[in-house]
């Protein structure tokens, strides 16, 4: 299973739920960056910022 397959699933689900793919990629990348940290402080705020930014761009 390669990244392309994962990306295809992501695209399919994003389309189904009307969520920007870039937003999901960005959030997943953020989660990858903090996954190994014991304290994932601020992740919720950063996710929220991404979501709001995505909404702002959409506007």
């Amino acid at each position: 299973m390669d990244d392309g397959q994962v990306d295809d699933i992501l695209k399919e689900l994003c389309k189904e739920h009307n969520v920007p793919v870039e937003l999901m990629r960005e959030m997943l990348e953020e989660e990858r960056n903090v996954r190994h940290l014991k304290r994932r402080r601020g992740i919720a705020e950063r996710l929220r910022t991404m979501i709001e930014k995505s909404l702002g761009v959409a506007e």
Partner: protein
Amino acid sequence: MSFHFLRLTLRDWLVYEGEVSINFGPSQDGRNIWVVYGLNGYGKTSLLRAIQWLFHGQMPDRHIRTCFNHHAVQAGRNELSVSAEFTYNGQHYHLIRRAEASINDGEVVGYPRETVELAVDREVQQAGIADKIDQILPKECQQFFFFDGLEIEKYATDTHTDETQEAIETVLGIPEVRNLCNDLEKLSQDLERERDQLLRDQSAYKDLSEQKEEAKVELDAAKETLRNLRSQYSSLQEQIDRLGERASTLERAQDEIAYLRDLRRRKEDLKERLDNYEAELQGYLKVVAQRLVFPLLKEQLDRLQTQVNKAERTGERLAHAKAQTEFIRNLLNDTLCVCGRELDKEARRFLEKRLEELEDQLASSRRLQERVGSYTVAVTELKDLESRIRYIEGLADPDVIQRALLTKYKLQVDREEVEQEIAMREEKLKGSEDADVGQVFITLGEKKQNLAEMEERIRNAEEEVKKAEKFLDERQDALNEAARAIDDKRRVVDALQLTRDAHAVAREMVERLLRLRRDAIERHMTNVFQMVTNKKQEYDRIELAEDFAPCIVTHSGQMMKRNELSAGEKEVIAFSFIAGLNQSTQTNAPLVMDTPFGHLDVSHRNGLLEALPKLPCQVVLLATDRDLPEEELPNLAYCLGGRLDIIRDEIGEKSRIETTPL
């Protein structure tokens, strides 16, 4: 291969005194297996532990304090290190981990201090080294890549522990998606709370709005009051100014008013004198006029006298005419003339004509005589007038009249001058004359008192305006704040929806990924298993339980129970599972296997040796000659990257590693 060891170097590590290196060299197509031979106790597991410690500073069954080479410590060297050079995704990495201990009496005491260095493409990393290492090989995944062949049997159990399951999911890249799912769920809950707060804020905003409007009305009213007061103040100030000026003017005008009154008295005096002179002059002028008409009267008198005389003579003629008329009439009544002759017709006509003429004269004389009476009266009056004029004539002395006229003229001039001055001064003192100065000053005082009171009221009104403005500003600020909060929270509704949708994506993604990863692992591990197992006719495939625990399924569809499997079969399942896991991820770290064939019979071992070259990663086998007899090596020649031997110096009690040419 995205991850390939180039060189491994140990310094004073366990049985390896001094510096010992293993050169793997660059990766070679189709040659992914390196065999490190060593007898039991020579240092194979020490190598495995070194690699395990290098990446995350942890080992399954040792503490770093126990890893210092005994001879080095005895010699006073208190530092050990393990380093590796490897390539990862096309970049060159050099990772060094050191431990420095305190030594006392030839023994390590206390806890060693560890340091780690990482250079990527020769560039030393200053920060985030642990994060970078974890990105290359997650700590919990390390067990699937660097392991003891005798220990992997645990992956062939009925159920995995939570830690193992988490580690498997980590290798499969699930946790970040699962974490995202959980984080988005929490974020949704936060946003729901904010949305609820938004509803409350909107209600509060409405209240604030109403308060602001009320504050605005109050401010407008206060301003209007202030405006009115200022207007009144200004008007009052003007009144006071005018009153002040008026008071000053009136004060200054008192002397002039007195003078004006004098002028008026003088005017009255002049008027009286002029009237007197006028009357006197009228008398004089009457005399003078009469004197002027005297000659005319005289002439009239003479003419009347002539008329009277004439009338008197006319009387005489009238008497004569009457006598003649009588005579003629008598003649006409007789037939004879005085001469005695008979009156003929001719004479008679003559006499009649003469009679008519006389009668006309007589009528005319009578009318004249009638007028004479009136003439006589007029003459009498005129004579009386003449006598009076003659009396007055003596009185009407021209010098007296002239003096009177001059005096009158002078008086008139004086009066005009006085009148002019009065008019001028009246204009100037208009309204001042009748004013009550005292009252003006009283009014002025009252107005000034009013002004002072009004100043106080204005100050109060200004304070009210300031208060109202401050209150309004506060309401406005609160309103702005509330509006911003609402505006921010308005986005919350949209953000909440998007978060929920993203959460659904993440949730389904976890499910889809797990399913797909599981399928992939099952496929890969079945392939490996089929290569390794010696019961290909019985065993069809391996399936994974929910917790990724592998289970053999026979061709008849039967799920094999763990207790029905031999130790070797369990090891094969575990290896197949690790190999399947390895192939199902993007990690592709090298497999470093210590004594991998511990429980395997020849058949399984050969199957494994057949499978290893097919793995898409570097494989380092730490083996005894029993695990992998040297005579088997030629069979691996096509995929062998290198052979290394651990040599033990029994005299010196230390091991070293030598590369043996293939």
